[in-house]
């Protein structure tokens, strides 16, 4: 279902005209109100009035996560704090978190974008949304919450964790929609099976899953285990929170990025050069609807590409491909670049392993080593060592053949690897410890 018929199917030309107007307003706004941006633009020798076409965007400097940290906590806000109605912050595992603020209008725009996203995933007014994203400084919980309410659905603000209670409520309240991270969804599916709850006892129809990179094969595993449509949603707190881009249920192929609020670009992460549509690189987003903290050419560090071909759903907003990973998640093993999501894809395609895994990277005698721990499935457990050995060797060979790195695969007992209630942490890099 299309929530905002006019904006979501706006012809490209009109959409671009709208983008230009909003971009010009944004640049003027930050130039006049944020000393950081005034300085940056002056250094780049660009004035707001120089932005005459969307093509001029590339003359503007990038904004990085470090810039947000340097201006901690409120240095990039364009409005005084008394007009800020809410703040969120990123987890900030290293150092200070990055803080974002929202004006009343920002919350309104966000609610609309999120309602639009939920509708694209097939959610409508009569649905019951079990919102298992964490509530708090993390944008996931409240973002999905406000969007669900805006759409007119019933929202259960259960937050993450408390898995058995989640399932009881899912069953008793008849939840039709689950919003959660893909890894937590998998854990829920496993617990549902353990508790002996039958699929027919649940009304769950669709899962709107995001906040961490996941693979197409993980989608298949979730859809099969839960019998639902699993939809990929994308967002990041610096830009807005959830609701920046989402797959439509019609195509389930690529995520529509809401271009009336964001201008996406793909750049070469090394050189900063803008790449043509279709090429893979780092996603850069300029917010053109944000009031409290607009960001110019924010480097998301997420790797994807832009799909410019029109989508069968009729929305004119371009799509980005499923996020492959974050540049800072990329592992460099003896000079070979690899994303955890690539290992995940391969494991999910291997018969006999459960979708739970852990990657341990270490350095032994100055050589990088990588160990992949994966749980053995009850279905293929054999009483003969050689069958299990063959499974292990097959995975090692597949990784070697596809990505050119030698890894050690370790078979783990079922349910012994860590389960996650929020974002999964699948990589342990001992080289950094």
């Amino acid at each position, binding site marked *: 279902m299309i929530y905002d018929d006019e904006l979501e199917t706006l012809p490209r030309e009109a959409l671009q005209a709208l983008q230009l107007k909003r971009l010009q307003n944004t640049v003027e706004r930050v130039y006049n109100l944020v000393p950081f941006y005034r300085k940056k633009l002056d250094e780049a020798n660009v004035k707001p009035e120089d932005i005459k076409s969307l093509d001029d965007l590339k003359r503007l400097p990038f904004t990085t996560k470090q810039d947000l940290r340097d201006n901690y906590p409120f240095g990039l806000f364009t409005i005084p704090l008394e007009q800020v109605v809410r703040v969120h912050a990123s987890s900030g595992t290293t150092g200070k978190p990055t803080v974002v603020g929202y004006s009343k209008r920002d919350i309104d725009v966000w609610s609309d974008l999120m309602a639009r996203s939920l509708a694209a995933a097939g959610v409508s007014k009569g649905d019951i949304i079990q919102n298992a994203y964490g509530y708090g400084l993390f944008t996931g919980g409240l973002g999905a919450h406000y969007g669900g309410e805006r759409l007119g659905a019933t929202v259960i603000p259960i937050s993450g964790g408390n898995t058995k209670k989640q399932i009881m409520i899912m069953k008793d309240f008849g939840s039709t929609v689950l919003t959660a991270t893909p890894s937590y969804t998998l854990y829920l599916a496993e617990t549902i099976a353990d508790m002996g709850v039958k699929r027919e006892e649940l009304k769950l129809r669709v899962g709107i899953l995001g906040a961490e990179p996941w693979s197409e094969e993980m989608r298949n595993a979730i859809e099969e285990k839960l019998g639902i449509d699993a939809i990929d949603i994308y967002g990041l707190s610096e830009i807005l929170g959830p609701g920046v881009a989402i797959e439509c249920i019609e195509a389930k192929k690529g995520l529509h990025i809401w271009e009336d609020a964001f201008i996406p670009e793909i750049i070469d992460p090394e050189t900063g050069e803008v790449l043509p549509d279709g090429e893979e690189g780092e996603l850069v987003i300029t917010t053109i609807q944000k009031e409290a903290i607009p960001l110019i050419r924010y480097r998301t560090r997420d790797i994807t590409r832009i799909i410019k071909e029109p989508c069968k759903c009729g929305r004119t907003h371009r799509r980005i491909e499923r996020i492959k990973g974050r540049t800072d998640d990329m592992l460099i093993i003896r000079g070979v670049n690899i994303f955890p999501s690539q290992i995940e894809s391969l494991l999910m395609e291997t018969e006999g392993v459960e979708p739970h895994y852990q990657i341990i990277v270490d350095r032994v005698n100055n050589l990088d080593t990588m160990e992949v721990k994966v749980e053995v499935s009850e279905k293929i*457990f*054999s*009483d*003969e060592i050689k069958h*299990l050995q063959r499974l292990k060797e097959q995975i090692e060979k597949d990784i070697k053949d596809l990505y050119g790195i030698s890894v050690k695969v*370790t078979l783990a*007992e079922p*349910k*012994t690897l860590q389960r996650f209630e929020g974002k999964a942490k699948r990589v342990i890099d001992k080289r950094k410890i």
Partner: protein
Amino acid sequence: MKRIRQISVFVENRPGRLLEVVDLLGKHNINIKALSLADSSDFGIVRLVVKGVDEAIKVLKENGFTVSETPIIACMIDDKPGSLASILRTLAENQINIEYMYGFASPVEGKAVMVFKFSETEKAQEILKEHNIKMLSQEEIREI
């Protein structure tokens, strides 16, 4: 055909894991008649013949172990030098391949019990029968 039920349990190679398996069975008063441990560098398979197979499987599964059941053959032979060689010779002469085998802990006086997993179970049983080698049923296992 006489077969007995063997339980196989997947265990990671780490201290105390085997203990957890046998401790669990002990606490549920399940007697282990025979046990063998097959291992690779980082995992192993514990193979067990017990009194109370169904309960053992239930208890192990409830405690998160991966368990499978395999039909195997138990032969009773004389507890004297050369008797195992004799049965193995018979099998070899008939081109029967043994996947694995192990012995029993508490056989009857003067007798020994060996359990076998063959590549071709049916064929192996025919041969054993032809040569009058005594095979035990699940009930008989419970008796000894």
